[in-house]
């Protein structure tokens, strides 16, 4: 399977899993599970920044259409895509990333993934709930939703990767 078909398949799977399954799970305490940020995270290292942002925007818009949120997912996923190259650069090795590897926990190791994905998911979740609620007197509610959803989405993303992904081999 080439990189292109793999990513197209992932795009469809993540968008529909989020729109049809995870958006309908109601756990309580303001927890909102989100797996679609993982798709943006797992795009190849060498992807251009414009195609990265366009992909994130389109994916967010598709989820929006299915859940009557009109731009909320698109905006927050775009935010994450914008910060992805910046944070990748900050945590990157001195000689640059190895292009045959994928930015996943199985390829890059727990320590790297923990910080990079943690920061990106934090930006995504905070922006998402900030825009959704958009009231200064509800600030602690925004924080509560952000932190709780962050923890659970994070654990879910790690589980998905450890179950379904293999280490990339040299071609």
């Amino acid at each position, binding site marked *: 399977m080439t990189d292109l078909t793999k990513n197209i398949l992932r795009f469809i799977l993540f968008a529909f899993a989020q729109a049809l399954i995870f958006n309908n799970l109601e756990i309580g305490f303001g927890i909102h599970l989100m797996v679609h940020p993982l798709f943006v995270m797992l795009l190849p290292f060498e992807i251009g920044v414009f195609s990265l942002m366009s992909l994130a925007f389109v994916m967010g818009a598709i989820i929006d259409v299915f859940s*009557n949120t009109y731009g909320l997912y698109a905006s927050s996923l775009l*935010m994450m895509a914008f910060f992805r190259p910046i944070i990748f650069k900050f945590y990157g090795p001195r000689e640059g990333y190895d292009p045959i590897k994928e930015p996943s926990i199985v390829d890059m190791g727990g320590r790297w993934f923990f910080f990079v994905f943690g920061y990106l998911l934090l930006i995504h979740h905070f922006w998402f709930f900030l825009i959704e609620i958009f009231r200064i007197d509800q600030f602690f509610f925004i924080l509560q939703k952000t932190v709780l959803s962050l923890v659970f989405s994070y654990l879910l993303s790690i589980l998905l990767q450890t179950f379904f992904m293999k280490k990339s081999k040299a071609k």
Partner: protein
Amino acid sequence: MRNLFAFFKRFRVFLFFAFLQIIALTIYVRYLSFPKSQYLTTASSVTAKVLETQNDFIKHFNLSKNNLALQKENIRLRKNLPQSLYRIDRNVLKINDTTFKQQYAYIPATVIHSTVTRLNNYFTLDVGWKQGIKRDMGVFSDKGGVGIVHNTREPYCVVKSVLTKDINIDVMIEPIGLFGLLKWDGKNARRGSITGISNDLRIKKWSKVVTRGGSGIFPRGLSVGRVESIKGIEGEPLWDVVVKFSENFRTLQRVYIVKNLMIEEQKELEAQIPPDEEDK
């Protein structure tokens, strides 16, 4: 000019980001206020088809409970049928329908998609303007009012549920007849509140909250919930009334849409009220 190009070149990533972000946020803000101009919603036929397929799978989860509720409603209605009533007055008085004119018609519908955890919750129904659904029609279930039609397409429509920030259904508390606006704070899907209730009258706990029918969206007297607690608001002569909704929005499946046949007359009359002095 060269400086301008240099500027664009330098900040092109950020400009592209800002451009897309503005599109997303504009759609988001605009949809909340002007739903007619939007096409990308669950009321459009492609997405609604997918959601209908999804609903085919998940509708069975609450099926037995919903059937029971519908059966109860049937029993209640059957009691009012002529065949279950004993006729006292035989052919003495005939009622011709000039005393009663039909004001409300009801259209049955099925919920194919719904949310309860967001700040603004909507649900999608399998009827649209083909069936004569228009914006601002009321929607209720066998237990009580659940929302107002927000946006329609040919085969589907999106309903703004009671669990929305600015739903503002006018309700009254029975039997004293105090009225106010129903609001939702975005947290608990089982509870809302009524604003504008002045504290000079006493309200009994668990008294019924019904629609007032003032705006012609709902018929008068449709149940919404019961008063759960009453608290005074500090510094204002008002009660903060908490309402427990009679409908559980998580298991909502069968609903009816209210079609008010006299809405035009009411609107025409109300348009003749002269505007306030301050508005001029």
